[in-house]
């Protein structure tokens, strides 16, 4: 199986879906002639032309709204946010329009829209460019939220997102763009709403999404090598819909849970999962549910400290040892 980068996997997904369905088009800042700020869309404009790959001026609210309107009439826009942080100027369009128009129309309208781009800290660009809004958006019934951690998942989930008939908020990670994973050459889809057990273990469950799942894999290795503890890593892959069955199955097996995310702790995804576990797996738990999140402050610039602010393998290991 070929090894390709997370970036290439996304690029392939976009190309395949543009080719498959004439209603799919890509719109965003610098996505066409410039080949994408992070080169995710490289070569697509040359291949598919200006109708299918559209350079937009810096008007996130305007072109997200445009995409919502166009999707109501049956197009399937894929909007690139140069950074998900910039979606904050389009919040009204995302939450009020994409998120609510189906409901307020009593189900007469649907919005087959994807908004995608990087949502991560860790690149020394300061607080305004490091937001991770998956918890905010998952708090809006009507929206779906997907956070792939590997190239394989990124490709399969993006293709599913584009085929989904509801608005999907697709959150990538610039720190993963250049990393490689095995990805099959033949076409495949990864369903939205199904978690992936990325490592099996009997002693402890790490429940994570996005790059935090990769961090957990490293932490699980350290735990095994240095402490003889067998942790399993459940990668949620999507936040909403959420694979609650997989979460419960894992914790019922290991009886210990650490929920890890790069988001901030307050009302984060981990809070929701801890609540589910507290309610539905109370009797299965042998220890309190612990969480590891980004340290609770705006993202710091300082390159020497920023990666400390995010969950890293050592911090995850230390947390796990508190209950093992």
């Amino acid at each position, binding site marked *: 199986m070929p090894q390709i980068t997370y970036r290439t996997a996304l690029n392939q997904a976009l190309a395949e879906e543009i080719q498959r369905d004439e209603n799919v088009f890509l719109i965003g800042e610098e996505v066409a002639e410039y080949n994408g700020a992070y080169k995710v869309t490289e070569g697509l404009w040359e291949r598919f032309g200006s109708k299918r790959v559209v350079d937009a001026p810096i008007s996130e*609210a305007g072109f*997200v*709204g*445009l995409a919502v309107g166009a999707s*109501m*009439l049956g197009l399937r826009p894929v909007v690139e946010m140069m950074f998900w942080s910039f979606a904050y100027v389009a919040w009204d369009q995302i939450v009020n329009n994409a998120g609510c128009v189906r*409901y307020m129309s*009593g189900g007469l309208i649907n919005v087959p829209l994807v908004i995608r781009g990087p949502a991560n800290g860790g690149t020394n660009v300061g607080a305004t460019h490091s937001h991770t809004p998956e918890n905010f958006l998952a708090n809006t019934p009507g929206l779906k939220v997907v956070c792939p951690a590997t190239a394989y998942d990124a490709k399969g989930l993006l293709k599913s997102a584009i085929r989904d008939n*509801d608005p999907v908020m697709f959150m990538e990670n610039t720190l993963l763009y250049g990393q490689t994973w095995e990805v099959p050459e033949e076409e495949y889809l990864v369903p939205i*709403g199904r978690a992936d057990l990325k490592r099996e273990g009997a002693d402890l469950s790490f429940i994570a999404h996005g790059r935090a799942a990769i961090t957990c894999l490293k932490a699980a290795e350290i735990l095994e090598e240095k402490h003889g503890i067998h942790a399993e890593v459940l990668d949620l892959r999507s936040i909403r819909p959420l694979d609650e069955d997989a979460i419960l199955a894992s914790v019922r097996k290991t009886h210990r849970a650490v929920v890890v995310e790069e988001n901030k702790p307050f009302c984060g995804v981990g809070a929701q999962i801890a609540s589910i576990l507290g309610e539905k797996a109370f009797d299965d738990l042998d220890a309190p549910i612990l969480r590891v999140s980004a340290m609770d402050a705006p993202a710091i610039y300082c390159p020497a400290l920023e990666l400390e602010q995010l969950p890293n393998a050592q911090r995850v290991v230390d947390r796990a040892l508190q209950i093992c």
Partner: protein
Amino acid sequence: METAVAQSEFASADINLRLTPDDKIRILRDMYRVRRFEQISLKFYNQGKMGGFLHLYTGQESVAVGICSLLGEHDHVITAYRDHGHALAVGMSMDECMAELYGKATGCSKGKGGSMHFFAPDKNYWGGHGIVAGQTPLGLGLAYALKYKGLKGCALAFLGDGAVNQGVYHESLNLAGLWDIPAIFVIENNRYSMGTSLARSSAFKNNLAERADGYEIDWELINGSDLYEIRAKTWTAMARAHEHSRPAVLEIDTYRYYGHSVADANAKKYRSTEEIEEYKNNHDPLRLYRRRLIAEGVLDDATADRLDEEAKHEAAEAAKFADDSPFPNASDIVADVYWEVDNDTERGRTGKHFFND
């Protein structure tokens, strides 16, 4: 005193010459329907039959009815929260609209949208939007989709004189001008945004539409009390959108008789009773159009009165229908959130979508 009917130089515009007497009567009837629908809804709002806000369109009927009388197969409409007039003008029934106000399952949005959120995609009517100017890029997107699909049509996005100061409206204008999108932005300038007059909300030289110059977009000013002028000038913009895929901004001078919403406690504080009376007496689009049709010999007073009576009757019947209709069930609260769940697809069955228990 009934003055002589002012001539409209727009009566002889081609698009108006094409109107048959029946067409003209239908337009008058539709204006009566909007007015009487709202009158009845106000009555029952005051009796506590509905909740929330009720933004009445009374005084502005010629705008929605005049413009919607021009719509063809691929022409689309979207507006803000003052949306009853547009809804009826595109052909929605009074029953489904009144039932929506009552929050009933038989409402156009099954009681999930309310007064500000009427929808009828089958009639090219895309709402009904509660966030000021939030609908403007959606209108742009509808027009974008038409162009993308190669369909000859346009999208008319209505907004208020207060909405023109929202950033997203300007983003929409820029994109429409830049990309030749057949979107027509119709500013219904009723001179107030809630209690704030035009002079207190907008920096402008002459008018609000003129801002379109900054985006290379054609614009036009329209007297909203002249139905023929509304039709003629809007049609020019629509024809340009159809033939050349160019956007437009139309600013229509109009007036609302009631407060911003029925709950507007200051309705009489930020403007004088004289100002309101002046509009009602001298610029009321319904009265003026009725008089014009009588002068044209299209109908007589008795027929016009009958149209009015029929509209009242239809509205009263709609209120009965709404009253008799059931509320949605509690289980309906979580329906119509995700298309995939509603349609019970594999995708809709994968993962947990709702977190209620």
